[in-house]
């Protein structure tokens, strides 16, 4: 399993996420798409930190390869926060407009 395997998987996930975000007519589906994108990013982080080890993270004989993982953990936390806020906003919008279709929420239309 080379690095490129992981990269290909993550780019497919990413594209699918983008697709969902672009085309879906339900805000929650869009959220799912965003989750896909975030997952692909995390996968990338971990993969890169596994395969590419910068020189400065080798101290003595020990090799540190955890940076990517920790960033991924932070990413997961962010995803959680984002999901919470997103859903709260969706609820508020739903109360206000009675719908969560993004094309119906166009108060900012010029």
């Amino acid at each position: 399993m080379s690095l490129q395997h992981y990269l290909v998987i993550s780019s497919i996930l990413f594209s699918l996420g983008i697709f969902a975000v672009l085309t879906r007519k339900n805000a929650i589906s869009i959220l799912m798409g965003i989750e896909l994108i975030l997952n692909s990013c995390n996968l990338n982080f971990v993969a890169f930190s596994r395969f590419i080890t910068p020189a400065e993270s080798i101290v003595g004989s020990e090799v540190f390869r955890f940076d990517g993982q920790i960033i991924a953990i932070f990413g997961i936390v962010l995803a959680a926060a984002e999901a919470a806020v997103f859903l709260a906003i969706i609820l508020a919008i739903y109360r206000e407009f009675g719908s969560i279709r993004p094309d119906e929420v166009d108060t900012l239309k010029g």
Partner: protein
Amino acid sequence: MEFTLKTFIFYGFALSTIASALAVVTVRNIVHAAFALMVTLFGVAGLYVFLQADFLAATQVIVYVGGILVLILFGVMMTSGRLEMRIHIERGQLLLGAGISFALLMLLLTVIANTPIWKNLTDDGTPLSPTTERIGQLILNEKFLLPFEVVSVLLLVALIGAALISRKEVRE
């Protein structure tokens, strides 16, 4: 590349991830989509295991599957009032979206294929365990302490914010 059990499992995970992700974006029933997303997340967790990130994999399962997915389902319930919710997609938008995402995918693949230093980097199989201890040290004791604190505050703020936004407006 030899075709071992390990490889086989890897491809299994990879394919199930991609397939379920495809389902997430295509299935019309939003509840089904959510279940498909669950499979995707499990798949990614499996891939983490292959990358020697066992702690991360566990986190992925707990937070994503146990937390975020449940949250999404709640959202579905509270906004639609019923579990099945049809998703309409306009044709033009669908095509344009597909085109753009495909173009992006192609671009990314070209980049992946054409970047020389990424070629032929194979896993040397160095074990990283115990990852949990190292991650704990790094987060709570070493160079990630400050980001950790910042992120925790961020999470707190997000939670309060979410609670504030979603509560019913009290008219005075």
